[in-house]
C-alpha cells in the first residue's frame, strides 16, 4: 500500500506534519528537485542551442573577420541581411531550393498522413483475412535499411525519366511503415467501434466512414505524424542529393552546393545554414510541444 498523500496528512495530522511529509517524500512524488538539476539541465540546453547561436554569429559577420578570429564577437554583427542576400543571389538556386523543399515537405506530409491513417484505420478497426500477418510485416519493414537500395532505385527513376525531378523525391516518401504503425496504434484506442457501427447503420460507405469518422478521430496523432514527416523530408539529404542534382535542388542539396562553391566565405555558408533552418525553427516554436508529445507517446508504445 502506498503512503497517505500529503493533503491527507495535512487534514489528519496538521500542517507541520504535512510539511515534514512533503520534505521526506521520495523521488518522483510531490518534491521539487534542487537547483543542481536545473543547473545541469541549463547546461544541456545551452549545449543544444550554442552551435546554432554560433552559426548565427558567423552568419552576421564577414569572411575576413572570421579568418582572423574564430569568435568574431559574442553579439551578432550587422551583416546577416547582406550575407543572406548574397546567398539568395548566388548561382545555387537557393530560392528554387526553398520552394522545392516546401513542395516536397508539404506533399509528403499530407500524403503520409492520409495514406497512413487510411491503412491504420483498416488495421485497427476493420476485419480482414491476413490482417495480423500483414501488420507484422509492416512493423518488420521499419527495420529494413531501404537506403541501401539506391542503385536500383536510381535505375527505376531513370527508366521513368524522373532523374532531376521532384517527383523522384516525393514518391518514395508518400507513405511510411512508421506512419501506418503509428496510426494503427492510435486508432485502436481512440476510435470506438460504436461510432463506426453507427455510421454504417446510417448507410455510410466504408470510405465515407473513414472520411467522416476515422479521420477526425485521428487528428491529434495525425498532426504529430505530419510534423515528423515534414521535419524528416525537410532535413533529408542522401536521396535528393543523388537524384536531383544541382539544377533542381532541395535546401540540404543547395547547402552542399553552397559549401562546394563558397567554402572560402564562412559567413556566407553560415547565412545559408541559418536561412535553411529558420523555417523549421519557426515550426518548432509553434508545434514543438506536439513533437515532444509525439516522441514520448511513440516511445511508450514502441
Amino acid at each position: 500500500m502506498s503512503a497517505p498523500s500529503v493533503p491527507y496528512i495535512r487534514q489528519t495530522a496538521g500542517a507541520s506534519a504535512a510539511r515534514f511529509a512533503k520534505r521526506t517524500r521520495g523521488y518522483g512524488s510531490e518534491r521539487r528537485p534542487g537547483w543542481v538539476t536545473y543547473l545541469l539541465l541549463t547546461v544541456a540546453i545551452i549545449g543544444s542551442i550554442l552551435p546554432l547561436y554560433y552559426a548565427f554569429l558567423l552568419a552576421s559577420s564577414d569572411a575576413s573577420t572570421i579568418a582572423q578570429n574564430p569568435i568574431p564577437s559574442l553579439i551578432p554583427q550587422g551583416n546577416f541581411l547582406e550575407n543572406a542576400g548574397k546567398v539568395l543571389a548566388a548561382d545555387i538556386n537557393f530560392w528554387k531550393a526553398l520552394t522545392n523543399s516546401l513542395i516536397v515537405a508539404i506533399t509528403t506530409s499530407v500524403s503520409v498522413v492520409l495514406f497512413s491513417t487510411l491503412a491504420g484505420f483498416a488495421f485497427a478497426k476493420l476485419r480482414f483475412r491476413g490482417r495480423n500477418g500483414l501488420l507484422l510485416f509492416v512493423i518488420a519493414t521499419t527495420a529494413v535499411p531501404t537506403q541501401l537500395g539506391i542503385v536500383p532505385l536510381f535505375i527505376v527513376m531513370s527508366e521513368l525519366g524522373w532523374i532531376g525531378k521532384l517527383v523522384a523525391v516525393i514518391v518514395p516518401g508518400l507513405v511510411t511503415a512508421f506512419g501506418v504503425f503509428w496510426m494503427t496504434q492510435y486508432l485502436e484506442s481512440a476510435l470506438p467501434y460504436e461510432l463506426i457501427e453507427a455510421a454504417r447503420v446510417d448507410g455510410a460507405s466504408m470510405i465515407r466512414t473513414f472520411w467522416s469518422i476515422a479521420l477526425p478521430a485521428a487528428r491529434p496523432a495525425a498532426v504529430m505524424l505530419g510534423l515528423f514527416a515534414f521535419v524528416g523530408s525537410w532535413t533529408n539529404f542522401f536521396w535528393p542529393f543523388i537524384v536531383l542534382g544541382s539544377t533542381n535542388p532541395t535546401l540540404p542539396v543547395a547547402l552542399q552546393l553552397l559549401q562546394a562553391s563558397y567554402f572560402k566565405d564562412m559567413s556566407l555558408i553560415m547565412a545559408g545554414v541559418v536561412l535553411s533552418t529558420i523555417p523549421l525553427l519557426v515550426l518548432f516554436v509553434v508545434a514543438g510541444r506536439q513533437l515532444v508529445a509525439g516522441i514520448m507517446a511513440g516511445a511508450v508504445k514502441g
Partner: protein
Amino acid sequence: MATSTTQPRAGRRLPDSPRPPRRVGFSQTLGRWDVKVSPYLYISPFFLLFALTGLFPLAYTAYVSVYDWHLLGGQGEFVGFENFAFVFQEPNFWKGLRNTFSIFLLSTIPQLMVAVVVAALLDANLRARTFWRMGVLVPYVVAPVAVALIFGKLFADQSGLVNTVLGFAGVEPIKWHGSVLPSHAAIASMVNFRWTGYNTLILLAAMQAVPRDLYEAAVIDGASRLRQFFSITIPQIRPTIIFVVITSTIGGLQIFDEPRMFDQTGQGGPGRQWMTVTMYIYELGFGNQKSFGRAAAVAWVLFLIILAVGMLNFWLTRRIASESTPKQARKKVKR
C-alpha cells in the same frame, strides 16, 4: 462489426448463415463488396510503395551486383562475384568499414549515456517541464547537413573554435580533419548533437512509465538516489534502451550526411580517414567509377552487416527480456 445490419445490438458480425432474412438487392451486394475489399484497398498504398521503392530495389541490388553495370552504359556482362572480389581487395572498402563502426560506436555509446542522465534529470518534478523538454529537442529540427557545416567550422584544424578554446587551456591544436580518430570524434559529435535530445525524450517516456511505488519502497528501504537510479530506473527501462540502440544501429551504420559534409570535397578526407561505407557506395556508383555493379556489391554487403548486427541485437533483446525485466507498464503515469 462493420457489416450492414439494421440491429446494432446484433453483435459485431452477422453470422454467415444461409438464411438472410431479407432480399439481397444490388446496393446490398455493393455494400458487402465494400466491406470485403475496402480494407485491402486502404492498406494497399503502403504495400505497393514499399514493393516498388523498398523491397524491389533491395532485391534487385543483389542482381545488379553480379553484373558489369555502368551508370550511363547500363547493364553489361554477367561477372559473377567479380565486383565483390574487386571491392574486397580495395583498401578503401576496409577503411570505410572501420570508419563506419568507429563513428557508430563513438556516437551511440556516449549519446546513450548522456541521454539516460538527462532523461533522469527531466524525470524530476520540474517547474516549466515542457520548456526543458522542448529545449533538449531543438537540435532535432536542424538538418544533418546544416549541423555538419556548423560543426565542420567548430572543428576546423586552424582557427576552429574548439581548438581555440583548447588553446586557452594550453592544449596543442588537434588535427580534427587531419587524423583518423579525432575526425571520427568530430563527426560523432554531430550525430550526438542532433539525436541526444530525441533519445532523451524516448527514455524519459519509459522512465515515467516506471511504477512510482517502486521508488517509494526503495526510499523506505533507505536506498540513495544513485542506488535507485541503478537498481530501479535502469533495469526498468532496459527494453527501451535496447530499442534506442537498435534504431541507432540501423541508422548509424548507414551514416552519410555528416561525414559527406565534413569538408567541401566530400571524399572523406585526403587519406579517406572519415569515409564511411555509404560514402564509398556513392563514390563507386555516382562518383568517378560510375560502376553500379560495384556500388551494389558494397550495398549488399552493408545490408548483410546491418542484418547481422540487427539480429544480434534482437537475440540480446530476447535474452534480456526473458531474463529479468518485468513487462513495462503500458500506461503513462500522469503527474
